[in-house]
């Protein structure tokens, strides 16, 4: 050790003297070889950072090591490949897990099973479908169900299916009906719904299809479980149609046209859906109404597939007939991200189910533009603007009742499949934050 230090000291001295000789200009340079290891001062390494910068970086340096090691382990052990294989394996075998988070509603977990795939019967009966699912939303609901059907009946464009679902939403919210309600008056209620449905349809072309539906619903309404919210009775149960629950039979028809070039990240085309339904309450239910709905979106390339303007319009009206009513839970609803069918439509800065009404008018505008891409990955920035309102009859519609919501979303895609979205939305009633794997429209 001492020898090592002595040697280092001696060498440094020799270097220093040699360097000094050179700097004095009296040295005889090694002009014979301009690549010779002759230096003006001894070679040494300076510290990579000045002390203050090193101090500032210290907390980050402390997390660097475990992250680096974890990443190295992840890659060395092929964990992404194993995860991808597992996901693909599950998907190919009809098992599709899902996970998500929504502010105010907590974590969402789901599992969907494609039984023909799972049983290995899909290759034998490719047109036969049988899905079953279970979904658990940490703070709001539990849902399970199944759908069984045939895609092309006997090779024709006809399709049929049967549907069953049980859903318990123990923490739904209600704020009153119409556009002029207060967020502070929100109450909670429990909604247990059992649905049995049948569908028969015809696929006119890959872009056009239509179907008839027969739906039976059994709705039980109860008090909400949250202590933080008031109860439905706050509004006076007599003033709320359907507050005692209903059994409802619905006969409906829809027509769909979809010309999008990509389902998740369309750059052109659009979709159009029109729906008409007739619902009648059974037993002692007073429900009796028509439902009319038109939902359409169009996607426009703005000079490049990297810039897309997406516009969506949704109009819905429930028309009471035969002196009956529209149960409040089946009314048009607005608020939240709006990707789940049982939830209210997209008005992102507002609470889910914030607005109820017999009619609804909604417009969503998104400008989607790519800000980063790397091979099959790309990220879009999406400034968005939602404006919509619920109201009673068409005669009650007023422009001043529109509620606005605006914000920014970042969407990550893999090979044009939506991987994850992070968004923030702001409006008159505050700010919402979402992390989703499915976009609004």
């Amino acid at each position, binding site marked *: 050790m001492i020898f090592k230090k002595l040697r280092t000291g001696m060498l440094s001295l020799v270097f220093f003297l040699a360097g000094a000789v050179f700097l004095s200009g009296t040295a005889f340079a090694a002009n014979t070889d301009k690549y010779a290891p002759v230096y003006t001062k001894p070679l040494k390494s300076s510290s990579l950072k000045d002390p203050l910068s090193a101090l500032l970086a210290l907390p980050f340096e402390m997390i660097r090591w475990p992250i680096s090691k974890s990443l190295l382990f992840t890659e060395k052990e092929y964990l992404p490949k194993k995860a991808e294989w597992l996901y693909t394996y599950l998907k190919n075998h009809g098992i599709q897990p899902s996970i998500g988070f929504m502010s105010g509603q907590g974590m969402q977990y789901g599992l969907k099973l494609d039984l023909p795939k799972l049983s290995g019967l899909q290759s034998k009966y490719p047109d036969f479908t049988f899905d079953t699912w279970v979904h658990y939303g940490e703070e709001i609901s539990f849902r399970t169900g199944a759908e069984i059907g045939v895609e092309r009946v006997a090779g024709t464009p006809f399709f049929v299916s049967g549907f069953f679902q049980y859903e318990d939403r123990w923490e739904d919210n209600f704020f009153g009906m119409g556009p002029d309600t207060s967020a502070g008056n929100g109450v909670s209620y429990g909604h247990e719904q059992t649905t049995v449905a049948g569908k028969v349809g015809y696929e006119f072309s890959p872009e056009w299809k239509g179907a008839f539906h027969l739906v039976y619903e059994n709705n039980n309404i109860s008090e909400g479980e949250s202590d933080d919210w008031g109860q439905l009775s706050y509004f006076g149960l007599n003033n709320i149609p359907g507050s005692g629950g209903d059994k409802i039979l619905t006969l409906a028809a829809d027509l769909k046209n979809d010309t999008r070039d990509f389902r998740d990240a369309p750059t052109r085309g659009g979709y159009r859906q029109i729906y008409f339904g007739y619902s009648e309450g059974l037993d002692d239910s007073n429900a009796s109404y028509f439902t009319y709905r038109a939902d359409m979106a169009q996607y426009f390339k703005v000079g490049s597939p990297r810039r897309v303007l997406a516009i969506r319009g949704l109009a819905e009206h429930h028309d009471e007939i035969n002196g009956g009513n529209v149960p409040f839970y089946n009314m048009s609803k607005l608020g939240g991200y709006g990707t789940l069918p049982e939830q209210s439509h997209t008005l992102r800065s507002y609470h889910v189910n914030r607005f109820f009404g017999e009619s609804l008018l909604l417009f969503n505008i998104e400008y989607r*533009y790519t800000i980063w*891409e790397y091979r099959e990955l790309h990220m879009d920035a999406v400034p968005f603007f939602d404006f919509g309102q619920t109201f009673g009859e068409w005669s009650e519609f007023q422009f001043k009742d529109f509620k606005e919501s605006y914000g920014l979303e970042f969407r990550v895609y893999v090979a044009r499949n939506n991987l994850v979205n992070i968004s923030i939305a702001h409006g008159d009633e505050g700010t919402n934050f979402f992390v989703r794997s499915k976009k609004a429209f």
Partner: protein
Amino acid sequence: MLKKIFSLFLISVFSLPAIAAEAPVVKKQETLLYRDVYEQNVHAEAMNQLDLSRWGRKLFKKPLGSANINVFDEVPDSAFFVNRHAKSRLTSAQLARGYSETDGPDLSGALSVTKAKTEGLHVGFFIRDVKGDNYLVKFDGPDSLELATAAEVITSRFFYALGYNVPQYTVAFFSPEKIKAAEGATTRDKTGFKKPLTQEKLEEALMFVPQTDAGEYRVSASKILAGENKGYFSFSGRRKADPDDIVNHRDRREIRALAVFGAWLNNNDIRESNTLDMLAEENGKQVLKHYLIDFNGSIGSAHGGAKPPLFGHEYMFDFGETAKAFLTLGFWEKPWQKRWREAGEKSHSSAAVGYFDNRDFKPAEYKIQLPYEVFKRVTRADGFWASKQIMAFSDEDIRTLVSAGKFSSKEDADYVSKTLIERRDLIAKYWFSQSAPLDDFKAQRGKLTFKDLAVQSQFEKAETRNYQAVLLDAKGKKIKDLDVDASGVALEGVTADSVIEIRVNASPYVRVQVSADDVVSVRHQD
């Protein structure tokens, strides 16, 4: 004579550390792509913002010069770099052969696969030939025969001729029946779990590998290096356990210059995980040699086929470019998007070439895909040095080096050569314009002569060059102007301890110290 003896003495003394050093006891260090991405693209990018001295240098334009340059502003030989073509021209045969231990795998017998290559860009296998030599063979991607294999071999030749350590790379052809899975061979299949590599699995892996018209596989074969694998070398710090590794790698000119050479060879995949340290015996001494490896992401090639349009233009996560795109609502057309649009959104018509051209090529803006700080520290002096290295390659040299890629089409070889020749000139012209591109200083007969490399390379006309020279004292204070023209600087009144500062058309300076009839030191402004 006395001077020469003293010079040799000095050289010997300065070489002492290498001679006296004990065998290095260095640990293997590991890295892979994910870690590299996190370390450079996330951690280092954030830490740079907290680096006060870095901000200071940026604000006051005080770049840090390389620390391993000698008195003549050159990079002496080391375990990282050995001056080759720019120092002493290699013959055509030497250029074409590159670093060579054998002629490539012995194809007289079977090639036994010992293990599948499970990291990196292309399908590959570790094989053993009948002589018992071990190689890593890599194939081209589907529908892009010759692309990756040619790129790998050509680029390895360039890096070797420049002075870097590289393994032996050769292009080899063999019929499908030659390749056999050896007993005990392993692979990682699509499950990611280690599995035995059976002949069936081997054939499955090769199913989409393209074949030549003669029905043969074409591979780039790199001979496995002798010695003990010590993992990657850092582009930042040094290995303290290695007594020969004295200077932080961030401050090594030859490492910084990889940014320039990477731009030339379109090798945007230079990263720490594509380097290798091998502990091997040399001249009876254990030496840790530092290698560059894995070049099949160079020229027009990348994983799976032609280079994606943004490669070379953006980092993997390019926060600056992303911010620009975000703030301009996507209406700002990025340079690579413009280039791709102007190319009709098509690569070269030949799949063997991929996406490689000089359209909108800007030497200073080329980006290696991870934002290593070492590449951001390239100073004007470093760029000038790198350009000198590049300009040492004549058009004919470049054609010779490209011929090592064994393109089946002369047009493809000519196109790649032509593009490299043009790119060489674009790079050198740029860096020569950023410095006083003067070299080869000689003090003789009362005059300091030099070569103006920009004029010599025909980037500038001699009549447009306006040289200025001043005499400085030892403290850098101006003493007087000196007479200077293209033929040199008059040394009248120059004493041994004074320094001559020369500029060309108000360029940064080059400072030269002369004794009576010798050049003592040269330093280009950083």
